[in-house]
């Protein structure tokens, strides 16, 4: 498989604090990567670097053969991004928010079908100001996938979702992946990463460890896999 993302010796400092320290990463097309790390480890920072929202202090990133900082327009149209708290036009309905998003992306899509995929078909005419957190999160996921991007960068995508919604969204991600979409999803909920992702990357103390296939890790560590991953997260 071709590498969709290549990161080489990436560093980023915030003032005197080094958040990521010479990290390297390769992500192939059609993978689901689980990004694990403690709070403040640098998961969100890495996702922002991959989407061109932050400029690295050092190192190289290519996403679909383009530099996301210098060639943002070429990268963004292939990305669906959910980073930090989702923000919407509160006075507009779910349908209208997606409609405007698709207009900006210059893409046509069946909005009713997209809202149905995330379980918001009954709420399509409701103003977002009346949405609960879980509904906003689902709408954010809908927005990410609506323009059929090649890659999804998802930061804590199941935040605020109930168990039923979590299961539905997990199945949605797996189905999207089957269509060839690459997904990087970060979470601090270990069990969710183990159920959704195919391989794991851990960030701790500014360093990145690409641990490989979850199936292989499960074979190696069996019931102790969670303990193993937690120890790796501690660094």
């Amino acid at each position: 498989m071709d590498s969709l993302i290549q990161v080489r010796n990436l560093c980023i400092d915030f003032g005197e604090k080094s958040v990521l320290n010479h990290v390297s990463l390769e992500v192939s097309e059609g993978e689901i990567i689980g990004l694990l790390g403690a709070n403040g480890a640098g998961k969100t920072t890495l996702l922002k670097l991959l989407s061109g929202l932050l400029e690295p202090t050092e190192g190289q990133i290519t996403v679909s053969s383009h530099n996301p900082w210098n060639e943002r327009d070429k990268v963004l149209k292939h990305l669906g991004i959910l980073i930090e708290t989702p923000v919407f036009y509160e006075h507009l309905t779910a349908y209208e928010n997606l409609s405007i998003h698709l207009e900006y992306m210059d893409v046509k899509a069946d909005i009713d079908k997209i809202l149905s995929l995330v379980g918001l078909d009954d709420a399509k005419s409701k103003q977002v100001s009346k949405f609960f957190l879980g509904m906003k999160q689902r709408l954010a996921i809908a927005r990410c996938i609506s323009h059929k991007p090649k890659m999804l960068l998802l930061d804590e995508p199941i935040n605020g979702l109930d168990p039923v919604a979590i299961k539905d969204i997990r199945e949605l991600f797996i189905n999207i992946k089957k269509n060839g979409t690459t997904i990087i999803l970060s979470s601090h909920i270990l069990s969710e990463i183990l159920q959704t992702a195919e391989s794991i990357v851990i960030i701790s103390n500014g360093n990145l460890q690409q641990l490989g296939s979850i199936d292989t890790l499960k074979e190696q560590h069996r019931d102790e896999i969670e303990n193993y991953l937690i120890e790796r997260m501690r660094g």
Partner: protein
Amino acid sequence: MKKFNINILFDAWVMFKRCLIISLRNPETLLTATIIPFFLMFLFSTVFGSISDVGDFNYIDFIVPGIILQSIGQASQFSAMNVTTDMTKGIIDRFRCMSISKSAVLIGHTGAGMIRGVISNTVIILTALILGFRPQAGFIDWLLVISLLLSINITVTLIAVLCGMISKSVEGASGLLMPLFILPFMSSGFAPVDTMPSGIRWFAAMQPMTPMIDSLRALTLGLPLGNSIWLALAWCVVLSIVSFTVSVRIYNRKLS
């Protein structure tokens, strides 16, 4: 370059539609654009009309331009507040995740602000006609009035967008626009400039609202236009260019 310009126009159009829908769904916006100008017109013409001396003019004929400018300033506060909301509540961060032309945000907000201003102007003129305003303008004069009002609306909205960019809070954005509410009172809007004390008279003569008001008054009442129209347009052009340029710089800095 052609493709780049088309993208700006398209993105600006989408942004404009979104800003307009927000305005229409926010009752306070519509109230400010319609009811408040109506009451201003009513208040000034009935309560103050009997005690004010504006020379040979019918008082309501005299104050219509001043009320129009005052309400343009009032309507513009929503542009400032909406821009600040976008800048501080994360909407702009959303735009950074999308390939949207940078100018589109400013153009969209400006367009929606203009529409609010035009609605407000229309309400004032209609109210004034009911209360006794008797314009003497011909067809060409009305075309010039509409053109000048559009220019003023664009200028004031761009100033409001700049205030929205600068401000760190919605309340602050509204506060930064306070001069726009006050300046019409310190101009030729509600009393002849030569009746004012000398310091205020000088200020009233120098500030941009006076030639705008004088031009609107001359056009609506069939009076000699003089140089006021050129001064008014010059102020509109200069203030618009400065506001837009600074807004774009601030916006680009916040996006980077």
